[in-house]
């Protein structure tokens, strides 16, 4: 069935946006084709969440102009807090749709590492970007929102780590949203060439209370043979956004992908984190923690799909639900035919803090091969009164005991974030949300 939708931008407008950015013709064409597909393709169908009434299309304006930062002193406190101003050598800050600050160490430059905003990358590293941009991990024509994204990309980051290069210090990215009319069509593309290693940590932070915009985020990680990628993310987007966030890994032979995602948006959110274990001996660790509050509706799908033999996938999802928040957790381990000796494990747990909250953990194993291992654990429940009794019996107040249990429950991601300041920020965000 094709669904005709009136989109917010016409094909002509998309062309002229591309032109104003001096994009190479392949990218201009990709956008033009994508906007046509976006008109026809159906919406995605997140399992168990009905999104037919959600607005993923309309927004006040496609891009907003923001002033770049001349120095880190000018950053708002909310951003300063998540950056080690002295120590962080590799940093990109995007303010709404504007590349606002970038630095990269001389050492990494000399090694051939590319770390730049997506628009610059499209112009200056056209061949590399063309090779991987929505070609392997995410495809333009998967559904309306992937096509819409491709047509409207207005921000993001490109990372390329050459063969055999090990990036010691994490690359840090901050997407600051301080304009209520901004829409984020960010594309993050991380390519780790053979035998390389990189840690990438991004934070989405809104300083506006209420947004009128769209967040349609697609982030692709390509880990070539024997590469190691650690990807940390903390999302704290404001209420009012309709968020579609798709983080996907494409993992080749013996490569390793670690995700540590703290998904703390106040917006309605559809989040998809899929890792394709393409190569033999590849590994994925997908850890996600979530806090839902207010009237928020969210759907989190984490999938590890095994194609390579001896591939290992571990999914961990912990969610805390309060107020009248509604959340679906879908955890999918899929082993394709031929992926012998693979192992698909997952654990999904939901902690309910309120009578009116709804949480649903759906562990799914889809297995097309005999000689494999797989397992899952899932639970939905309240804070255990016996745990509270134990903590309180040492003099700890009930509220502090609950706080300890909740933070402990969300620790698997917090402790895995590789940048101390981002870890502290996530702890603080959790603190503010569950109070």
């Amino acid at each position, binding site marked *: 069935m094709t669904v005709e939708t009136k989109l917010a931008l016409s094909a002509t407008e998309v062309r002229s946006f591309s032109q104003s950015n001096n994009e190479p013709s392949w990218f201009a064409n990709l956008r033009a084709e994508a906007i046509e597909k976006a008109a026809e393709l159906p919406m995605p169908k997140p399992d168990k969440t009905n999104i037919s009434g959600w607005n993923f299309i309309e927004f006040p304006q496609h891009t907003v102009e923001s002033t770049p930062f001349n120095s880190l002193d000018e950053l708002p406190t909310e951003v300063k807090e998540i950056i080690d101003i002295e120590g962080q050598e590799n940093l990109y800050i995007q303010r709404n749709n504007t590349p606002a600050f970038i630095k990269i160490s001389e050492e990494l430059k000399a090694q051939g590492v590319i770390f730049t905003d997506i628009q610059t990358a499209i112009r200056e590293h056209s061949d590399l970007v063309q090779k991987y941009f929505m070609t392997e991990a995410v495809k333009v024509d998967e559904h309306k929102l992937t096509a819409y994204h491709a047509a409207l990309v207005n921000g993001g980051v490109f990372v390329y780590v050459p063969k055999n290069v090990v990036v010691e210090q994490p690359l840090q990215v901050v997407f600051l949203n301080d304009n209520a009319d901004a829409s984020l069509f960010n594309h993050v593309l991380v390519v780790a060439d053979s035998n390389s290693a990189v840690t990438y940590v991004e934070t989405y932070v809104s300083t506006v209370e209420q947004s009128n915009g769209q967040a349609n985020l697609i982030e692709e990680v390509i880990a070539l043979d024997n590469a190691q990628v650690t990807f940390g993310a903390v999302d704290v987007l404001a209420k009012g956004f309709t968020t579609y966030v798709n983080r996907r890994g494409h993992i080749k032979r013996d490569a390793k992908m670690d995700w540590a995602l703290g998904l703390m948006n106040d917006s309605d959110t559809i989040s998809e984190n899929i890792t394709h274990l393409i190569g033999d001996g590849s590994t994925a660790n997908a850890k996600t923690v979530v806090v839902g509050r207010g009237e928020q509706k969210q759907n989190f799908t984490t999938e590890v799909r095994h194609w390579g033999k001896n591939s290992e996938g571990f999914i961990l999802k912990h969610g805390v639900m309060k107020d009248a928040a509604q959340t679906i957790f879908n955890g999918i381990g899929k082993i394709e035919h031929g992926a012998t000796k693979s192992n698909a494990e997952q654990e999904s747990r939901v902690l309910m803090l309120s009578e009116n909250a709804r949480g649903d953990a759906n562990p799914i194993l889809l297995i097309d091969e005999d000689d494999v291992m797989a397992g899952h654990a899932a639970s939905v429940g309240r804070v255990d009164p016996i745990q509270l009794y134990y903590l309180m*019996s*040492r003099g*700890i107040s009930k509220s502090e005991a609950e706080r300890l249990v909740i933070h402990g429950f969300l620790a698997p991601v917090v402790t895995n974030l590789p940048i101390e300041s981002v870890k502290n920020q996530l702890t603080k965000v959790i603190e503010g949300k569950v109070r």
Partner: protein
Amino acid sequence: MSTLVIKDLHVSIEDKEILKGVNLTINTNEVHAIMGPNGTGKSTLASAIMGHPKYEVTSGTIEIDGENVLEMEVDERAKAGLFLAMQYPSEISGVTNADFIRSAINARREEGDEISLMKFIRELDKAMDFLEMDQDMAQRYLNEGFSGGEKKRNEILQLMMIKPTFAILDEIDSGLDIDALKVVAKGINEMRGEGFGCLAITHYQRLLNYITPDHVHVMMQGRVVKSGGPELAQRLEAEGYDWIKKELGIEDTDAVTEEA
């Protein structure tokens, strides 16, 4: 001197009466042992004193120096000086042992007067050495993946760090090998003195070889039926409980089945 007084305590769990009028007075500088066959309400007594959510006190009183314990929340009981070393300590994922113990210590102190990190680490290291615990247990998640013996040692570690007025030990000896038992006993003996009273609940006289009690009480069918000195424990070890039943005319008609 402080005094813990339990008077005519009746306790039910899910409408079944387990304790049927317990009387007990414990002063600081005293160690009391409660012995008795399985299912006589010993652990119920421990849980009721601490305020376990499943146990309902239907009548009677518990007081510390005249303060009504039964009106207090669990954390207030702890701050009033009570400590229960539990038979089955909870596991709390994501909360390190050290963070937990520090929170417990700071809960007793005024805001702004929290224990300094250095002082805390010094004291924790010292107590862990004393209890022959691996230093890495401070950074492990609270009781998660601990063996039975490690959990019991960890209860005593908390006892030594928190320094309560009255400690109740709920079968601290069950499941311990002899070396671990000696270490646990060493920790408890270290606490003995002017400001500390102890109620040790046990099935076995063995524990009392290492922690010499000042008073021994026997519980049966939800009551303290006999009290005496350390020699009472030795006689129980040698002769079992039948002689007491005979002496007091107790029949096993309504034996309580609970022993959580």
